[in-house]
């Protein structure tokens, strides 16, 4: 789910179904990845992260999968709820120095239909 400018890819999902959001990242040397959720008018909200020495990590209703071979990241949301409607961004840490330098993807809009 990458996009540029105003044209965000949109995922429409029925309430209660599972959602899968995909992201391609750019830097094969990136060692840390985060998924953020952004609701209208708010800042990015941390959902889940994963390090490059893992290929799967689970949280509460969310799972992140990392495929380093093809530089692909996905976020799975189980039993999607209306409150999950938002724009979802993947981000990779591309920093050279201490601390994060997060490079964000273009985002995917998730619309949950009741």
């Amino acid at each position, binding site marked *: 789910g990458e996009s*540029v*400018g*105003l044209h965000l890819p949109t995922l429409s999902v029925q309430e209660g179904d599972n959602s899968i959001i995909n992201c391609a990242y750019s830097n094969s040397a990136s*060692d*840390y990845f*985060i998924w*953020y959720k952004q609701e209208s*008018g*708010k*800042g*990015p*909200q*941390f959902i889940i*992260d994963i390090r490059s020495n893992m290929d799967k990590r689970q949280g509460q209703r969310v799972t992140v999968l990392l495929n380093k071979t093809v530089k692909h990241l996905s976020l799975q949301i189980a039993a999607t709820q209306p409150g999950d409607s938002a724009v979802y*961004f993947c*981000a990779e*840490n591309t*920093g*050279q*120095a*201490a*601390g*994060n*330098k*997060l*490079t*964000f*993807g*273009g*985002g995917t809009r998730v619309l949950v239909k009741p």
Partner: protein
Amino acid sequence: EPEVTQTPSHQVTQMGQEVILRCVPISNHLYFYWYRQILGQKVEFLVSFYNNEISEKSEIFDDQFSVERPDGSNFTLKIRSTKLEDSAMYFCASSDLGGTEAFFGQGTRLTVV
């Protein structure tokens, strides 16, 4: 729950004026960041700050931008002479260790007219 707070929530300024955006990071965090998001676009990294100095900065962060931690709690972003293209949401973030999750504030919407 601790959070990053930013003020003001919205700032309107005339082109050429200086603006200072303010942030209070989470209190035990060591790394501080500024990001910006032009309407409808990606969130973009501006600068990271650690141990009272800039750790890394992007090409966007030119001589018109500066950051400061004037005391033990505030972290500021100054734009010396604003341009129309500086209009964006500016997000402050902080993290406790490099490479762990960065927590974002709610942002300051800067409108340059």
